[in-house]
């Protein structure tokens, strides 16, 4: 079981506190949604969890190891997709190359990731020619191809139309059966359908850390209550 624990973790710029202090112990299973309005600190929390940002104070650990190490055992999908000026296949291969993987079995792994992301027919197209939905799926495939122990998805549905969003939802739900997922999102209906645990943020503070059903039926904090009423949106 993958466990994420934060101990008084805090991100500051000068005197301004951007996030935290956060203390939590989380056994990840299925989909854990990171919810909150814009500017709540969801992306920052994901970057902090992944170890691309180090806390100014406190610690972030994955099963006892600090988040900055072994980053490549986790898959991370960026909010703004980064597109290498290569084919789709080469874009996905880049995650394997970054792990120092050489040799022939790379191609099998890439094929598998392409299939899961429904991108087989676009494999040899220059990535710059993909549509918005395809781009998001390519980014997901790149995060998946290394067989990560856990997936961190930063707003995987941002900017997608209903059809593309539905396709993405199917893929993520399927992946979640074998890989625990930490996912930043702000759509309530979709989150309710997909997630089994919720971390709710507002103004850089973790307001709720509870199972999804409890969060949606009986939110404990006023902030979560207001958010669910649509008042903070």
């Amino acid at each position, binding site marked *: 079981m993958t466990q994420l624990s934060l101990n008084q973790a805090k991100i500051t710029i000068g005197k301004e506190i951007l996030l935290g202090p956060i203390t939590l112990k989380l056994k990840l299973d299925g989909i854990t949604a990171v919810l909150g309005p814009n500017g709540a600190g969801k992306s920052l929390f994901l970057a902090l969890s992944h170890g*691309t940002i180090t806390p100014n104070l406190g610690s972030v650990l994955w099963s006892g190891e600090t988040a900055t190490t072994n*980053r*490549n055992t986790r898959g991370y999908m*960026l909010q703004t997709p980064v597109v290498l*000026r290569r084919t789709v296949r080469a874009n996905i291969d880049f995650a394997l190359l*970054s792990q120092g993987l050489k040799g022939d079995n790379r191609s099998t792994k890439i094929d598998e990731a392409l299939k899961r992301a429904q991108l087989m027919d676009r494999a040899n197209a220059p990535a*710059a020619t993909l549509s918005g939905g395809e781009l998001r799926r390519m980014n997901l495939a790149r995060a998946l191809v290394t067989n990560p122990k856990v997936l961190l998805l930063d707003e995987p549905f941002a900017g997608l139309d209903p059809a593309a969003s539905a396709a993405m939802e199917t893929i993520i739900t399927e992946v979640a059966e074998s890989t625990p997922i930490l996912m930043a999102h702000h759509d309530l209906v979709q989150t309710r359908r997909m997630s089994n645990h919720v971390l709710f943020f507002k103004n850089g503070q973790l307001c709720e850390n509870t199972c999804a059903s409890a969060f949606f039926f009986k939110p404990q904090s006023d902030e979560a209550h207001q958010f669910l009423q649509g008042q903070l949106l």
Partner: protein
Amino acid sequence: MEIFTTAIGLILSGNTDLITIITLSLRVSLSATLIAALFAIPTGAALAILQFPGRRLLLVISSAFMALPPVMVGLFVYLLLSRSGPLGEFGLLFTPTAMIIAQTILIFPIILSLTQQAVQPLNREYISLFNALDTPRSLRIQTIIWDARFAVSIAILAGFGRALAEVGAVIIVGGNINGLTRVMTTTIALETSKGNLQLALALGLVLLMIAFSVSLLTHTIARMGEKYQMVRA
């Protein structure tokens, strides 16, 4: 007009002196370009991605050296290679090797600066992915060079153009010795001063043709690159 016809006739006649001069010119400048590119491209890319104290100073120095006067480089290499100089024992002065050394020094900063400028924006675009995947430094350098390969080829061609066209450095370290170190530009300078304008003009036309070919190649390469560029913001 008559002078032009004579010059063109001279080119078409396949005059051996002319061919020796052109071949030496190309040999010296191509060797210098190859050697300079081999070192300048990785250095330029490393300067784009690495952060260390003094980096900006190095960049300022390298851009300033783009405008290095060829006669200065010639003088410097002359002092280095002359009998009483530190490398005098190798007896390289007034040989094609000395000319290659001088041109390499002359165009190294050009290729370095242009490479750095070409890959810097790419690094800015890719860095969040590099960090998310924990991509090793050597792979980052390879990646931005490869993905900016079209712009980098243009940097190489700019260096080659500069090397082929300069006269100050090669005349000082080569000595313009007939049949040994006489290249196109030095011949033009000499023949013009002697009043032998046909030969000078013939060589000038050849230089111009090479310049056109280089330009054509640059444009072709740039067009090839467009397919992989982002088509939208």
